[in-house]
């Protein structure tokens, strides 16, 4: 009898979850945020249903403020996977020109991400959505089940979650309910990096250290990705060797100074780090328990 490594166990668990969802739901979708977790999730989905492409589309809830490198990568990966890519942008957000600078991160996230996701779920009638969230990212994600049930209004009730003993999942849905499914829930950031390295999974180049134009905002290094980034009077961005541990909307995502320009170097850096990757996300600092509130309202 062969013994599986911890990564093989995690991989097997994730693939089992994905197959379970496809078997039990009518219209599943994979939420694709273009980050490293999405890259691993997409890789696992392709493995789970090989040689066919995964039997569900990819959905990107776009805010129009992602890094340019992420858009290029997203289109390339969808094409390579042979999957349909659905891109949804909240039309109200476009109409009101919602952006992180003039409206602030809280409104931007609520309108462009939370409302955008709910709109897309309703528009396409998806009853199950895979997400790449992990327990080790943030405390509210830590207590969320792998199968996270949402009401018809997409709300999450953290006090009413089903037990998942011995990894037996109850996939029964009430009418109008949908499920957010997190196949990577039990993975850690280090697991993700090790798996990317071992499986040679392509990721957005922004994860590797490189010289990039950045400005300092409240202690965070914000990359000047395009001309929409408003600079302070007289401000000149500096070229600094940085990388991103997490990728989101570029004005809301802080870079870290790093020399790690290869996967082994990133893994080595990961082994030494004592901070959460989401430390770089401005939206997580909005208020105490902000992520849990967002999730209750329907945020991914």
């Amino acid at each position, binding site marked *: 009898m062969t013994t599986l490594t911890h990564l093989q166990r995690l991989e097997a668990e994730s693939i089992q979850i994905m197959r379970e969802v496809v078997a039990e739901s009518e219209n599943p979708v994979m939420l694709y945020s273009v980050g490293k977790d999405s890259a691993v999730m997409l890789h696992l989905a392709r493995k789970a249903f090989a040689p066919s492409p995964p039997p569900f589309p990819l959905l990107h809830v776009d805010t129009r403020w992602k890094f340019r490198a992420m858009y290029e990568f997203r289109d390339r990966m969808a094409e390579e996977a042979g999957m349909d890519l659905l891109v949804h942008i909240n039309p109200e957000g476009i109409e009101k020109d919602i952006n992180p600078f003039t409206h602030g991160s809280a409104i931007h996230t609520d309108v462009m991400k939370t409302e955008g996701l709910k709109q897309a779920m309703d528009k396409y009638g998806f009853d199950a959505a895979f997400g790449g969230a992990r327990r080790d990212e943030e405390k509210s994600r830590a207590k969320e089940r792998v199968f996270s049930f949402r009401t018809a209004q997409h709300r999450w009730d953290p006090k009413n979650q089903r037990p998942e003993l011995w990894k037996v999942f109850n996939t029964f849905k009430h009418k109008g309910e949908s499920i957010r499914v997190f196949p990577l829930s039990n993975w850690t950031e280090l697991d993700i990096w090790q798996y990317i390295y071992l499986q040679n999974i392509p990721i957005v180049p922004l994860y590797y250290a490189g010289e990039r*134009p950045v*400005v300092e905002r409240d202690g965070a290094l914000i990359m000047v990705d395009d001309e929409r980034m408003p*600079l302070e009077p*007289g*401000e*000149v961005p500096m*070229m600094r060797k940085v990388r991103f541990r997490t990728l989101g909307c570029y004005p809301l995502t802080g870079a870290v100074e790093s020399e790690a320009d290869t996967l082994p170097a990133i893994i080595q850096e990961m082994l030494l780090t004592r901070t959460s990757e989401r430390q770089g996300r401005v939206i997580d600092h909005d208020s105490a328990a902000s992520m849990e509130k967002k999730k209750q309202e329907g945020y991914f």
Partner: protein
Amino acid sequence: MITKHLSPEILNQRRLEAVRLRLDGQTVANTAKRTGLSAPTISAAWKAFREGGWQAVPVRPRGRHKGNPQRLGETEREFLWQQLSRWPADKSPGWTSRELAEALSDETGRKVSPRAIEHWLEARDLKPAPMSLETTTKRSRKGRWLHQQVQPVLERVRSLGGAHWQGGVRVVTNSDGRQARCYQLYVHGKRGVLHTCRFASPPKARDYIELFERLADQGPTALIFHGAFFKASAEIAAWLEQHTDFQLLGVPPNSKL
């Protein structure tokens, strides 16, 4: 027995012991056996004793003379630190070690060499090395940039009787323990002489323009610069448009110069 590895202190103890044994009437062979020194060393120690007494027996200190290093006190260090946060009164594009030494001498009366100032800068990570601009193979990214972008500009400026400089802006962490970090603006001039200033926050467009103007005052100038994203600054673009004899060459990102 080879005695080259012995420290001067131990060697001197053995030389003195050898002289004592010789005074007791021991033969050179016996003395060599008991002290572990060679016969010529014992003879040399005995000869030195006979000519200069006990004081002449120990060997002279080996190695380079350590000298008397010029140590900067807290007042001098504070003065230098403050001095770096402002531009030099003359039109120099930053403080050189010589100018800092002169300023220190004028202000505090303490004379130190420019070399001592350089050591102080080096210890605080304020002495960046000049970029390596030697042309490698033309096919490399660096080679192409140097051949196609840099050399034609440098030749043009040189033909106009101008000078070329190279410099940059960088973050210096934990410099002197005074503050968590500072920002250093620097240029290297002729023979790699460092001119530098420091800032508590990232330099603004006016700081870069101040540097450019100080360089431009010396005639046509080409500046190869690393560490700033000038394309995003309208003020710098406007200044460069007005100063056509000032050529700014930004080092491409990740070019490892």
